[in-house]
């Protein structure tokens, strides 16, 4: 049954957010020589990509997409990535940190911290340097995490990709300072002012395709350290006492499958997912193993070049 018209249209609030994001993207396209959009395949990336299609319509977005593949993403994410890029007719660059692969870095033996540092952060820096990108869009939101809440929409990075949170450029009105020297770059966050709920309401209103992992299904999961980890392939070795169970689960965020906890949920439609959001009493990042590794870990990672 079709939802009533009003749930399928953008509220004034969503329209305002949409227009703000489009403005940011156009500024980047106009002011930078070689921008790129980080595409992480998740719901925020899907919204960001949808907004980019809108910003430059009827032209295609004047920049490629970049996926830093840690080789540990859910298989369904990679399938979705290929389909989505083909459907939209966009250019996608996939970068894998081959040094890390050769060194045998993986989330189980190396630990989440080293895995993320090498495969994500270093991989990202390699890709940005290799192609000489001077601006990179990321889908991070300020409501995700408290150091994100402090970050500018145009976030300056040194030639070594470092973030200096104590010395950010003042960002008044909608006047973004895009001036950089050679080698420096700007990370741009067009979804800064969106909340998780805004993202879901917008996906619902616009009918944006998302990875099926967000919808509840019977999936093989292992309970480990209080998180439900989906065993997506044979690389995940079972520890003594662990067993794989088929449970009705879905994901609130997506990343490397060994580092992403599932939640038990019966929500199989967008409406049900959004409805579930209202009763959620935990944050979406709780399912992420990496944030809890150490105090102020996000800020530390960002200083080192993480998105």
């Amino acid at each position, binding site marked *: 049954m079709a939802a009533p018209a009003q749930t399928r249209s953008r*509220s004034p609030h969503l329209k305002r957010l949409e227009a703000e994001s489009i403005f940011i993207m156009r500024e980047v396209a106009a002011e930078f020589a070689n921008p790129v959009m980080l595409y992480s395949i998740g719901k925020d990336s899907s919204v960001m990509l949808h907004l980019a299609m*809108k910003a430059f319509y009827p032209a295609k977005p004047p920049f490629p997409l970049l996926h830093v593949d840690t080789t540990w993403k859910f298989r369904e994410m990679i399938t979705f990535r290929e389909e989505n890029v083909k459907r939209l007719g966009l250019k996608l660059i996939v970068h894998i940190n081959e040094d890390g692969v050769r060194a045998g870095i993986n989330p189980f033996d190396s630990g989440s911290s080293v895995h993320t540092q090498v495969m994500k952060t270093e991989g990202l820096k390699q890709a940005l340097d290799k192609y000489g990108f001077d601006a990179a869009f990321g889908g991070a939101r300020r409501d995700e995490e408290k150091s994100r809440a402090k970050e500018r929409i145009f976030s300056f990075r040194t030639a070594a990709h470092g973030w200096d949170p104590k010395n950010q450029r003042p960002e008044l009105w909608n006047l973004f300072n895009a001036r950089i020297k050679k080698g420096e770059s700007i990370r741009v966050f067009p979804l800064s002012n969106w909340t998780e709920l805004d993202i879901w309401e917008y996906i619902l209103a616009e009918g944006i395709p998302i990875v099926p992992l967000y919808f509840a299904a019977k999936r093989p999961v292992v309970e480990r350290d209080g998180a439900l980890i989906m065993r997506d392939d044979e690389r995940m070795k079972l520890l003594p006492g662990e067993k794989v169970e088929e449970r009705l689960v879905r994901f609130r965020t997506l990343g490397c499958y060994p580092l992403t906890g599932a939640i038990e949920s019966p929500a199989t439609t967008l409406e049900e997912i959004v409805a579930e959001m209202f009763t959620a009493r935990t944050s979406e990042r709780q399912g992420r193993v990496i944030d809890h590794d150490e105090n102020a870990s996000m800020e530390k990672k960002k200083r080192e070049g993480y998105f």
Partner: protein
Amino acid sequence: MRPDELRTYLAKQHGKSLLRFLTCGSVDDGKSTLIGRLLHDTKVIFEDQLKTLEKDSRKHGTTGENIDFALLLDGLEAERQQGITIDVAYRFFATEKRKFIVADTPGHEQYTRNMATGASNSDLAIILLDARKGVLTQTRRHAYICALLGIRHVVLAVNKLDLGDAEAKDVFEAWDEQFRAFASKLGFASIVSIPMSALRGDNVIAQSQVFDWYRGPTLLAHLETVDIESDRRARSFRMPVQWVNRPNLDFRGFAGTIASGLVRAGDPVVVASSGRTSVVSRIVTMDGDLAEAGAGDAVTLTLKDEVDISRGDVLAPPNARPEVADQFAAHLLWMAEEELLPGRQYLIKIGTKTVPASVTELKHKVDVNSLEHLAAKTLQLNEVGFCNFSTTAPFAFDPYGESREGGGFIVIDRFTNGTVGAGMIEFGLRRATNVHLQAIDVNKSARASMKGQKPVILWFTGLSGSGKSTIANIVERKLHDLRHHTYILDGDNVRHGLNRDLGFTDANRVENIRRVAEAAKLFVDAGMIVLVSFISPFRSERRTARELVEAGEFLEVFIDTPIEVCMTRDPKGLYKRAKAGEIKNFTGIDSPYEVPEKPEIHVRTVDITPEDAADQIVARLRSAGVIP
């Protein structure tokens, strides 16, 4: 939540407005605690975040057994270590009535620029004040910066009012009065003072039982209902062009976010800086063409005509254009450690335009305590001054008081690329208000200098058949080849239009020449080299023409060809008909030709070609300084 409840919820979202506000005030007045309280009590904080917060509070907290909400907002390591807010944090919450974006800004003077960042996009400011300390310099500084950045609504939150009942009321009223005395000079539309304890939650969301003498609204009740008049759609249409969209040869769209007003397909628009006009043909979006779009909408416009438009241009209605100038006066908040250097070239970014600019004069700086104007040679970090700016090219703007989008600009250091200042344009300097930019009258010499020539009348006189028109035509072609602006007035284009009511009587000949001379004078005023080619047999008429213009602007060119030669040439057979009596009053036959006594240029045509004659004339023009 069930699906039907969800639909009700989503339908409700359509009616919710947004309020952007900031919290400011001096250090330790409780800004972060207040926002933490708002977020906590509106149930934005998730359980896992609360658990972390409780853990952190025990470790770093400064509030004893209570949750230290500041730790929820002070997201940077340095902030938690030093126990202060350094940079602005943006948080989001919503109630049944409204959505809110709150900017938690630092209290230290050192970080005023981050406070200004938060204020630039806010509609309302909550200025906190520690009841035990009262109105401090930072309270006044923040109130002033809020006013400067165009915030119209202020809440004075008298916090930490943890005193006995009677005393609390007195203290509250004293600070309220003191603040209002200062703020009355700042022109706020509304000031609401609320007694509060952010830590305990008194009057934040729930009406306080402690301050039972207070009859006003709680903070949240006020935030939910305060009327933030938005007239952005009612103002004139403005769209700074961000990006020219050219996916193929058939489509040329101008992408931008409408800063103010409305635009409809079919509306006339003007490019503010060039004055070129056209008509909006389509308002393109991925969701389909729109009939109308308004302030805040991100759209792509196509126009009916091929008009040269690029990033930084502003589209506006032809009857309500923004100002265009290369000099303006503005308030400037300096935000860099390195002081402002008047005369140094910086970049300013306004709308989508970036242009080199320098401060030509620092009129004064402002004392934030007294709002007095002080003489100054420079501005230090966090100081506010009033300056004249000069840019290398004219650009379009509206005064900041009318439009934040149209009059707010940032100053960028050309060497460090840092954002070093924030400015608010008060007015353009185009009139005699500034000695450096005298209003340039568009006059004869201005027009002529644009053409690179001296305007003159070349008055060709001579008998019929003397070769006047032939030579004048060659001269015009030669001048044209030299890229000069010329025009010929002769019998062919004047007799058939302007003077078609005139015959060939003496009286008519006189009137004919008078009109031609007047027309020639207008061309001279337009800066042109005008070539007049008429027999003009009478000295008095030629003198009349000469006297219409300034000395040196009338060059009499006597095409001296004996009448016998003219009669032999007789290209139109006129002499033959005149001699046969078919034409009356023919010059040289039955009407006199008065030979010029002192022509500026005397061309004897008998032994030379018309081409040679023309060369002689052009050479004389050069020696007379008419052309370079």
